[in-house]
């Protein structure tokens, strides 16, 4: 399973998201290859899931991956729920 955490530049915001997504996946015992990347690179990259903010999700509507929105990158409850609701364990 491949998961992309996407932000505008692929430097800061997406790395924070990736850290917390990896922690959540680890606690659930879900094995996944998680990368953080910028929006324009993500559009041409294959993945099973993309996790990003509400603002950037609109630009990824045409991507074949399932797009999952997280609004608060520091809220582990929201991140856990987003994974549980979208990614089968």
């Amino acid at each position, binding site marked *: 399973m491949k998961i992309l955490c996407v*932000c*505008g*530049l692929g*430097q*800061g*915001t997406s*790395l*924070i*998201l990736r*850290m*917390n997504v990896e922690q959540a996946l680890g606690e659930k015992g879900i094995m996944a290859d998680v990368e953080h990347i910028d*929006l324009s690179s993500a559009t041409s990259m294959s993945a099973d899931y993309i996790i*990003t*903010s*509400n*603002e*950037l999700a609109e630009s990824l509507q045409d991507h074949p991956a399932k797009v999952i929105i997280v*609004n*608060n*990158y*520091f*809220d*582990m409850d929201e991140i856990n729920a987003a994974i549980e609701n979208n990614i089968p364990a």
Partner: protein
Amino acid sequence: MKFLEEKLVALDIPAETPEAAIKAAGDLLVASDLVESGYVEAMVESYRENGPYFVLAPQIALPHARPEDGVKEASVAFVRLKDPVVFGSAANDPVSLVFALGASTSDEHLVVMKELVMLLNNPEKVERLKNINSYEELKIVLGRN
């Protein structure tokens, strides 16, 4: 790396616009010679181009640009705004806590980001950031004294 050292923290800074708020935090990195002044321009440009996606939790913004935009050392500066500023984030406006990130390609970037995540993942610490009155109090929140 430089993470929220005394010269990188300013409390209750007035800013009318997102651009001014980004600049206030970015200028702290410039003043400590951690980024070139062009990096701050690039942070503002990124906001104009990509929007407020870096407002990544209620009241919290993490403006940054690319390492090649002029970062000398992995770093984070913090400005608490005197009055909250609307950045245009549907979920997380208005912003009062601005963390300017000097994004580096070095391994220290990862260390800096982990420090930041440890701080901001803790809701109790975030609440305390809104109420501290001095750098000494911030040091206590950071567990640095």
